[in-house]
């Protein structure tokens, strides 16, 4: 049996705003019958204020899918469309006092339905690039599609690297066999592809990168560091953490990890992973250090 919170149970047994919503002027259908989750979110939006006056849903899905849908409608009622779009899947999960890792996709589906419904109201076409794979790492709710993509894009070759980039495998370690299988699959593809005769090792990637990257101006370099860190923040925020840049001093970049990142067993791994990304983006070696070390490091 899943370890559902009281709140999840309560929203499942007494879903709010369930059923067809008459006079809806924004409708978002997402999900997949194959995977057993499908959600229709219906919004009644006041055209003048763009406020969501009423929200309703229909769900084909499990307990947490129904509870997530119910929670979503409660959260967004009374909000303007722009405010509503700021609701993240983590907000939905938080509203329900958390979801089991296997069920986080239910909250993701809620957020996507919201985007789809708003797009529908505004007469836009909503295109989803979301693809979901089998859950590999239960400790950090990371699925196979994400791991495979990260492995491919970053030419990762070890389980440790995967943990740095995605967190997968950084907890109880019971998913390492699954991660190794993905690594083997990707490396096999790389080996048989006619263009890539040799499997790139991390060292050769790092060594080759600086040569390829054109020299950046100081300003461009700072912008690049900012952009890279900015791109990582949503991943940290998903886990209630955050990061801010405090100072850039030559090859040393000082940052503050915030929220849940502080003291998390993944803190060192997180810094490592971000550092790897910065090295790649800048094409030069940099060190990512906690702000507490400002003035102490050489």
């Amino acid at each position, binding site marked *: 049996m899943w370890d559902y919170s009281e709140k999840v149970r309560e929203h499942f047994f007494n879903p709010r705003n369930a059923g067809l919503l008459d006079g809806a002027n924004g409708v978002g259908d997402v*999900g997949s019958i194959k*995977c*057993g989750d*499908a959600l229709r979110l219906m919004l009644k939006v006041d055209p003048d204020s763009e406020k969501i006056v009423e929200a309703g849903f229909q769900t*084909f899905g*499990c307990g947490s899918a129904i509870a997530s849908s119910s929670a979503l409608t409660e959260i967004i009622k009374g909000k303007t469309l722009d405010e509503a779009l700021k609701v993240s899947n983590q907000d939905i999960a938080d509203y329900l006092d958390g979801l089991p890792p296997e069920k986080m996709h239910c909250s993701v589906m809620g957020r996507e339905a919201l985007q789809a419904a708003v797009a529908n109201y505004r007469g836009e076409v909503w295109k989803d690039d979301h693809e979901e794979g089998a859950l590999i790492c239960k400790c950090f709710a990371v699925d196979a599609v994400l791991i495979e993509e990260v492995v491919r894009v970053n030419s990762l070759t070890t389980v440790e690297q995967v943990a740095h980039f995605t967190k997968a495998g950084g907890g109880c370690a019971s998913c390492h066999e699954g991660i190794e299988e993905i690594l083997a699959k990707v490396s096999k593809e790389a080996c048989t592809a006619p263009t890539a005769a040799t499997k790139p090792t991390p060292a050769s990637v790092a060594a080759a990168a600086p040569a390829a990257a054109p020299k950046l101006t100081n300003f461009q370099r700072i912008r690049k560091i900012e952009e890279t860190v900015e791109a990582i923040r949503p991943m940290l925020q998903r886990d209630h953490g955050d990061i801010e840049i405090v100072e850039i001093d030559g090859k040393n970049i000082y940052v503050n990890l915030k929220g849940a990142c502080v003291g998390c067993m993944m803190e060192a791994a997180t810094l490592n992973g971000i550092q790897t990304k910065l090295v790649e983006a800048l094409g030069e070696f940099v060190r990512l250090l906690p702000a507490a070390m400002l003035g102490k490091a050489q």
Partner: protein
Amino acid sequence: MNDAPIYLDNNATTACDPAVVSAMLPFFTEQFGNPSSMHSFGNKVGFALKEARAKVQALLGAEHDSEIVFTSCGTESDSTAILSALKAQPERNQIITTAVEHPAILTLCEYLEKEGYAITRLGVDKRGRLDMDEYKAALGPRTAIVSAMWANNESGTIFPVEQMAELAHAAGAQFHTDAVQAVGKIAIDLKKTKIDMLSLSGHKLHAPKGVGVLYLRRGTRYRPLLRGGHQERGRRAGTENAASIVGLGVACEQAQQQMAFENTAVKRLRDRLEAGILAQVPRCFPTGDVTNRLPNTSNIAFEFIEGEAILLLLNKAGIAASSGSACTSGSLEPSHVMRAMGIPYTAAHGTTRFSLSRYNTESEIDRVIAAVPPIIAQLRKISPYWGEKGPVEKPEDAFAPAYA
């Protein structure tokens, strides 16, 4: 009104019979000896194991008591059987199994496939039946072992394993059957068959969890999985789980006495339950081979709703059942058994298994028949595939989500 919980999930596990529990208790206290020891502490336990072995032998109709090897569970028996056949016949590299086996077989086969073994998975028709011609065509000189379950844990469908064993032998291959669900519900007389190996698991027949049996026909080439001490004649090392083995013995003895009851009284309750639900709930159907299945199992597909949601509401009403939906397993796809039978996704996610035991009563079944229809109606009311009066026209078109 009586609202004690109703347990209809006996294919998942069963309650220990009180007689089983009381037979076990002394083996936690005064009868703690190691059966291998020379002194009287161990000796008595040794006799108790011998007695238990004889009871298992009787239920299975095995020719010799030495053909009974105690293991830690059904899964261990399954793994031991398949790995033994491969190790003992290195010149053969093919395994034939079915697409609807328990993960204890399928996951092992997936692993062996990566190791280079050839795996043939026989498909089933929409009632869950094998095609014997396909099976015959798959058998060949490289077939090391055929493993087919006696009865399916989800649908209860029974496979013709005795006939399959004959065919396997004709091809020089070993035959194993996972009879975890069948033992105690179907009369078995192994000495009259060509079955080489059979797995059973204690907790499916009112014995405790964590004890199983591998039946190993005398003369079958065998390589142990666990090597070590001389327990089980060296075929399964490790100090015996004496208390559980004694419990399993009692459970087998009882199963033999209750076999007729299972196939009359329990079957009648199952049929009553199924007919009662089908009569009241629109758009639902029983899955599997309904004319050739376990007497205690009814697996009903409720269209356009999802199984976990059904289970949660049933649970709230005090009814325990199980489902083939993706969500209950944490996987992305609904039950491989339902998919193998070609049940569409709109129904496969809503399959609900009711599995009875000899402890269920008529009044319990009547309570379930009354509880199910409103639960199904409640979930359909919020399903995007269900309209005011029934399924929306062409449900796949009416609701076409953005990714599929």
